[in-house]
């Protein structure tokens, strides 16, 4: 069964460093998303992406964040200058959004630790 994959599974970085989190969505999906979950808290929407453009973003997704689909398969989240409070689990998701199918499929997550 097709699934969303994410790499790395765990990333440790120092404050102020740039990180890139990678996701490979399900191959026929057209819409891509990033969510984050601070330890012990709820899952929060960051951004949605369609047709090489951001379609919606939350307040959390400020100028330090960017997303890109550099090729036909990868979808990346970049944090330019990490802060301690960026430590969280980051989930990528994708969906078809055609024919009434809207369910988002989540990847296994990348745990980001900023020290």
């Amino acid at each position: 069964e097709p699934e969303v994959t994410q790499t790395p599974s765990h990333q440790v970085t120092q404050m102020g460093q740039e990180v890139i989190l990678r996701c490979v969505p399900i191959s026929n999906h057209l819409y891509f998303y990033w969510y984050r979950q601070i330890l012990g808290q709820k899952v929060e929407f960051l951004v949605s992406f369609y047709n090489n453009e951001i379609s919606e973003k939350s307040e959390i997704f400020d100028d330090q964040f960017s997303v890109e689909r550099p090729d036909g398969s990868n979808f990346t989240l970049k944090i330019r200058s990490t802060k301690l409070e960026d430590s969280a689990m980051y989930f990528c998701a994708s969906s078809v959004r055609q024919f009434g199918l809207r369910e988002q499929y989540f990847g296994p997550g990348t745990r980001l630790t900023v020290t």
Partner: protein
Amino acid sequence: ELKVEQNPLFLSMQEGKNYTIYCNYSTTSDRLYWYRQDPGKSLESLFVLLSNGAVKQEGRLMASLDTKARLSTLHITAAVHDLSATYFCAVDLRGDKIIFGKGTRLHILP
């Protein structure tokens, strides 16, 4: 702004007992999800509820949706230890994004 509220946030219960988790949301939506999350793991989709009055069951879990009351419930029947996890309800906003509740941490005692 859409708010999704779950209660209780923590639940400790004995094996064999029944209990219900409630999920209220503040604006109209035609789609609600329930997810399970084990510690350190991703989100496992349990139910997708698409219409008013929808009821779905899988094993000891049953979910229902009342769109008029903006309320969904997740009912656990005769709980077993394997059901210990955090359960999230989440409301779909036109497919653009999903708004999650804070989660209910369920601990089932043997």
